[in-house]
């Protein structure tokens, strides 16, 4: 069992680089996909990029989506609604989590074979992490 991770950021570079950072720690067993920016590479969000990332990240065990802010959150919520009307859609859960910290926590936990609930919970638990 390996839960997939999708990182949705307003910025293509932020989504991609945080995906690389999380992958460095989680190792190759976890599918971590970036969906950053608009479909023409500007700052913003594309529901089609998120949808493609979710389908690519899913291996049947579900996908945890982590968003940075604003349009990333609203567009991801809209995708979840759309998937409800679709047969055989991947199981998708949005994590309410700090972006970078949640991504690392979720990816590492997914690498240990935990299920979607546990992966989402670990991302959300990152709000209670402190650094100093």
């Amino acid at each position: 069992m390996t839960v997939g991770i999708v990182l949705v950021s307003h910025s293509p570079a932020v989504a991609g680089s945080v995906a690389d950072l999380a992958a460095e720690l989680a190792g190759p067993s976890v599918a971590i996909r970036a969906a950053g920016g608009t479909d023409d590479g500007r700052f913003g969000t594309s529901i089609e990029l998120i949808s493609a990332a979710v389908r690519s990240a899913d291996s049947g065990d579900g996908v945890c989506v982590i968003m940075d802010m604003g349009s990333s959150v609203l567009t991801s919520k809209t995708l979840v609604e759309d998937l409800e009307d679709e047969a055989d859609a991947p199981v998708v859960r949005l994590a309410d989590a700090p972006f970078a910290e949640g991504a690392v926590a979720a990816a590492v936990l997914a690498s240990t074979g935990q299920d979607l609930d546990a992966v989402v919970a670990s991302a959300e638990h990152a709000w209670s992490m402190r650094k100093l």
Partner: protein
Amino acid sequence: MAFDVQTATAWITASEAVVKANEARLTGLDAAIGDGDHGANMARGLAAALANIAEKEPATPGDVLVAAGRGIVAKTGGASGPLYGTAFRRAGKALGDATEATAEQVGDALEAALTAIKELGGAAEGDKTMVDGLAPAVAAFRQAVADGGDLASASVAAADAAEAGLAATVPLQARKGRASYLGARSVGHEDPGAASLALILRALAEVTA
């Protein structure tokens, strides 16, 4: 006059045109308290709405709005995309399969749009968002219909209320979206989303006149 496929299509066409004509102004408002892309976002989203309507050839006004909403969601790129897109889709669904929607049905559709935006974005009136334009517009539209007004006069009432709502966003401090990061510095500017909303409702008044 009733709200049929032609009227619905004319509304989206006129919305696209007026947003395009005001693109620089919307962008300027967003540059002041956001990230300066609202004009480009809305122009792109409404162009996609028109393209999707042309492709789908919808048979009811409800389906016109659903097609518009899907185009907007797909291509806008900003927070306004899922908000307006979901709003148009819910409004379209609220019209059901009516081929000629009454003023009362259009009022219900606008109400559905408002509910959709509030649900998705979590904003209440006073948070300095498009909700501050749409909420008074829906109330004015329904009041006009209750007072015996037709689609044309109710749409004028809604557009007037949206413009008043836009003006009322100036002294507000943003509590949702990017502008909320600015804290007190968001005070003193019109909200970009409330500005585009006023343009779109003025377009409705014009195509139903």
